């Protein structure tokens, strides 16, 4: 973590919470948790409301689909922390490790529903090029995604285009798979609030 305040500038109560998390999970506290708990009224609190609604609010996309979108956006941004973190959550939600790694490595040929594939391709373009055109949206609609599904996917994309940038700018430490598995269990049980 490139700013010391994000590593150790938390209040006494928050530090006690971190100690509890370390004891219960037997894993280090993920840097993303340290970020959202630092001066939570400025960024963490309001951002978690956005992310929780995008990732766990009502949608015809499943939780696994949305976690996959998060991992895909992160991968497009070359954010290692978020890619690993949300691939782990998507694997837990789908109960299918191979599906997620196949999708992240070969989206064009992976065995998934066309609306989801077209949506991911559009999110990838938006994330990479910062812009999409009317024709890009027509292609997603033609593949069978509804307008509402596209809006829901854009909400996921918004959240992870924020979080991935912060992970890379602040230099999140990338831990081993066990820490991400523990984080994934928490996110599947409790969501983002």
């Amino acid at each position: 973590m490139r700013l010391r305040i994000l590593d150790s500038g938390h209040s006494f109560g928050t530090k006690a919470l971190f100690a509890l998390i370390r004891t219960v999970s037997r894993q280090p506290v993920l840097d993303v948790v340290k970020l959202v708990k630092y001066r939570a009224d400025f960024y963490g609190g309001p951002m978690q409301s956005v992310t929780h609604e995008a990732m766990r609010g009502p949608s015809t996309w499943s939780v696994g689909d949305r976690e996959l979108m998060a991992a895909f956006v992160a991968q497009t941004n070359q954010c290692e922390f978020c890619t690993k973190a949300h691939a782990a959550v998507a694997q837990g939600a789908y109960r299918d490790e191979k599906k997620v790694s196949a999708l992240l490595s070969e989206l064009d040929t992976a065995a998934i529903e066309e609306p989801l594939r077209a949506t991911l391709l559009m999110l990838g373009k938006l994330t990479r090029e910062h812009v999409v055109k009317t024709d890009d949206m027509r292609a997603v609609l033609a593949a069978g995604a509804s307008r509402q599904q596209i809006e829901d996917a854009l909400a996921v994309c918004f959240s992870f285009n924020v979080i991935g940038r912060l992970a890379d700018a602040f230099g999140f430490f990338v831990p081993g798979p066990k820490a991400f598995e523990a984080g994934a269990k928490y996110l599947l049980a409790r969501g983002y609030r």
Partner: protein
Amino acid sequence: MSNIRQARKALTSRILEGEGKASPSDRRAAFNNSGLAEPLGTLVEQVARHAHRITDEDIAATRKSGLSEDQVFEIVVCAAIGQATRQYDTALAALEAATGKE
């Protein structure tokens, strides 16, 4: 259908208009990726365009220019949310054009 409109509005107004250690004008400039003096201007552009290339030295340069860690924290947060907002708004406009719905 998920709806992040209210939550996103609350987030944006908090980071731009609420209390902070960085000035409201600097936070707004970081959000807009426009009009910041160096070295902040370069850092904000990196956050917006290729955050994965940011190094320890890039962050250290902003600290050496006299900014506190809290100020750098706020500026980076505003830059990230600003860029994600521009992407989101552009995409929603394209979707509206494709569906012909307001």
